[in-house]
C-alpha cells in the first residue's frame, strides 16, 4: 500500500527538513471559502492538509476551533459538502489531504460509504481523535479496502503497548499529542512531546507528527528538530477568522519559515 501522506512527509523532509501539517475546518466560514483557505495554506508552505469535519460535540477542541466549527454547522454544513470541497481542493493542489473527524459522523454516514467517497474525492485518509485502535475494526476494514491512510493518536500517558499498537495500525503518521490537553495555542510546547516522540522512535515509528499548542515558527522549528511533522491548527484558524485568506497566507508562510531547511 502506498501512503500519500508518508510520501508527502518524506518529500518535505528532503526539501525542508520536515513537514508543516496545517489544520483548517471545512465549511468555515463557508464551504467555498474553506476550499479557498485550504488551497491557500497548501500554496504557502503546508506540506500536508488536515481538514476538520465540523461536529456538534468536539471534545478534543479548544475554543478557537469550536467557534469556527459552530459557525460552519450554523451555516448548514453537511457531510456531502466535505466531499465536494475535498474534490475541488485535491483537483487544484497535490498536497496530501487528510480529514480530521470525530467518529459519530462517519458511523452515521456509513463507514464503508464514507471511505469510498473520501477516496473518490481525492482524500488521503482520516485522523480520528476519539477513535482508539481498540474500537476501530470497521475503520481498519474500510481503510484497507480503499487504500486510505489512518492516523491514530499517541499521548504522553499512553503505555508502551498502546504506543506499539498505534504505530502498527497507523498509516501516514502517528499523531503525537504534545501535551495532556485539547487544541489551542500555547506559549510553549510541552517537553512531554520530545519524550513521547523518543518513545515512539524507540518502538520503530518512522513518521511522527506532533500537534496541540504549536503556533509559532520557533515552535515549528523546535518540533521538527525531533519529529517528522509539526501540526498547526488554532493559529491558522485564528488568522483566517481575523484577517481572511490574506492573513492566513501570511501566517502559513510565517510558520513555514520555522522549517529547518529553507529553499532559496
Amino acid at each position, binding site marked *: 500500500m502506498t501512503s500519500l501522506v508518508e510520501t508527502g512527509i518524506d518529500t518535505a523532509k528532503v526539501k525542508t527538513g520536515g513537514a508543516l501539517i496545517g489544520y483548517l475546518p471545512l465549511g468555515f466560514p463557508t464551504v467555498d471559502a474553506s476550499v479557498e483557505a485550504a488551497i491557500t495554506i497548501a500554496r504557502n508552505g503546508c506540506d500536508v492538509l488536515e481538514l476538520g469535519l465540523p461536529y456538534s*460535540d468536539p471534545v478534543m477542541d479548544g475554543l478557537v476551533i469550536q467557534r469556527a466549527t459552530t459557525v460552519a454547522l450554523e451555516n448548514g454544513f453537511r457531510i456531502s459538502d466535505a466531499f465536494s470541497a475535498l474534490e475541488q481542493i485535491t483537483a487544484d493542489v497535490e498536497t496530501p489531504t487528510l480529514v480530521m473527524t470525530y467518529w459519530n459522523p*462517519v458511523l*452515521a*454516514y456509513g463507514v464503508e460509504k464514507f471511505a469510498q467517497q473520501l477516496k473518490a474525492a481525492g482524500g488521503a485518509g482520516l485522523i480520528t481523535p476519539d477513535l482508539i485502535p481498540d474500537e476501530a475494526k470497521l475503520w481498519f476494514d474500510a481503510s484497507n479496502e480503499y487504500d486510505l491512510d489512518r492516523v491514530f493518536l499517541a499521548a504522553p500517558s499512553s503505555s508502551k503497548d498502546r504506543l506499539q499498537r498505534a504505530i502498527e495500525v497507523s498509516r501516514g503518521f502517528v499523531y503525537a499529542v504534545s501535551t495532556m490537553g*485539547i487544541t489551542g495555542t500555547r506559549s510553549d510546547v510541552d517537553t512531554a512531546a520530545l519524550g513521547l516522540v523518543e518513545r515512539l522512535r524507540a518502538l520503530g515509528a518512522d513518521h511522527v507528527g506532533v500537534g496541540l499548542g504549536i503556533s509559532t515558527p520557533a515552535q515549528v522549528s523546535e518540533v521538527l528538530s525531533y519529529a517528522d511533522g509539526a501540526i498547526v491548527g488554532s493559529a491558522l484558524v485564528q488568522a483566517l477568522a481575523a484577517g481572511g485568506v490574506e492573513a492566513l497566507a501570511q501566517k502559513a508562510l510565517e510558520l513555514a519559515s520555522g522549517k529547518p531547511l529553507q529553499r532559496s
Partner: protein
Amino acid sequence: MALRDELGPYFGEFGGRFVPESLIAALDELAAAYETTKLDPSFAAELTHLHKTYTGRPSIITDVPRFAQHAGGARIILKREDLNHTGSHKINNVLGQALLAKRLGKKRVIAETGAGQHGVATATAAALFGLECVVYMGEVDTERQALNVARMRLLGAEVIPVTNGSRTLKDAINEALRDWVTNVDTTHYLLGTVAGPHPFPVMVRDFHKIIGEEARAQVLELTGRLPDAVAACVGGGSNAIGIFHAFLDDPSVALYGFEAAGRGIDTPEHAATLTLGRPGVLHGARSYMLQDSDGQTMESHSISAGLDYPGVGPEHSWLKDLGRATYRPVTDVEAMDALRLLSRTEGIIPAIETAHGLAGALELGKELGPEAIILVNLSGRGDKDMQTAAEYFGILDGAVK
C-alpha cells in the same frame, strides 16, 4: 449468564470507549482501581458506614394508596430516594466515586450537572472529603436551577456555566471531558450517570444498585411477593438502572423506563432518546442517541433539566434491544400533572424528573389492573424545582401566568 453479571466494557453492541487516547490511561487506572476496591471489604465497609450515618440508608418505601386511586387501583409503592441526604439518589454514586478518587490520590473532582442534583451531591462529597470541586453546568440550566447553583457554591464548589452548544447537560459533559483531558493527572471526573466510556456505566450502576437491592427485599417483606412492574424516569438512566438491576433476572417483574417526551414525540422538542433515537457514539460510548442523518447530535428538550439529554446509558440500550426493559415517552404536561397529583394526594413533592416515572406508573396501573403491584423509584425531591413548578402552575404571588 445472568443479566445482572454484565461487567462491560460492552453491553451487547453498546458501550465501549470512544474517547481521545489521552484519557485511556486514566480510564484503565480507574477500571483497575475499581476492580480492586470492589473486592476490598474495607472499601465496602467504609461506604456502607457512610450510607448509614450520612446518606440515611436504607431509604424507606412508602405505599401511596390515594395516588394509586388514579392508577386504576393498582398498588403503588415508592422507593424514597428523595429522602437521602442532598435529596436524590445521586449521592449513592457520588460517595462511592469520591472514596475511590481519594484512594487514587486525586485532589480535585469535576462533575457535570443538568438539574443540579448531581452537582450538589458532588459538591457535598467534596466538602465532606476535603476535595477541590468544579462543576460544569449548561448556562440554560444554571438559570432554571439557580437555587442548586447557590447550594453548590455554598458547599464550596466552583460552578462554571457552559456557554457553547445547546448550553445544557450535553455541553456540560463536553466541557468536563475537556477539563479532564487537560488535568487528568490530578483530577477525577465524577461522572453522574450510567453513560460515558467504560468503566463509568458499570461503576455508576454498581454504586446505585443498592436502590433495587433494598427495594426488592422491602417489597417482598411488605407484600410477600415481587412487584409486577418497576418504573423509573430515564435521562442518562442512573436511577432507573439502580432500581432495575436487582430485578433483571426476575422474569415475572416487568421493567419500565419513562423518558422525557417534552412537548410531544410528534414535535422536534423532546428528549425521547430510546423511543426515537438511533445507535451512535456520544460522550465516549455507543448507545441510542438523538442525531440527524449526518450524525450531528440533536438538541433535546424537556421541562426537566435532568432528563434534557440526547443520549442514554449503554446498558439501557442493551436492555431495550433485548426486550428486557420497555421505554416509553412522557410529556411535560403529563409529568407536571403527576407532580401535582402526588403532592396533593400524598404530601410528597417529587422532582420533575421523577414525575415522569410517576406519570408512567399511572398509565401502567390502568393497564395492569387493581391486583398489580408497581414499584416506582422516587428518585428525587422537588424542592429544587419550585421556581419552575410555581411558574408552570401560576401559583407564585405576583407572577400570574
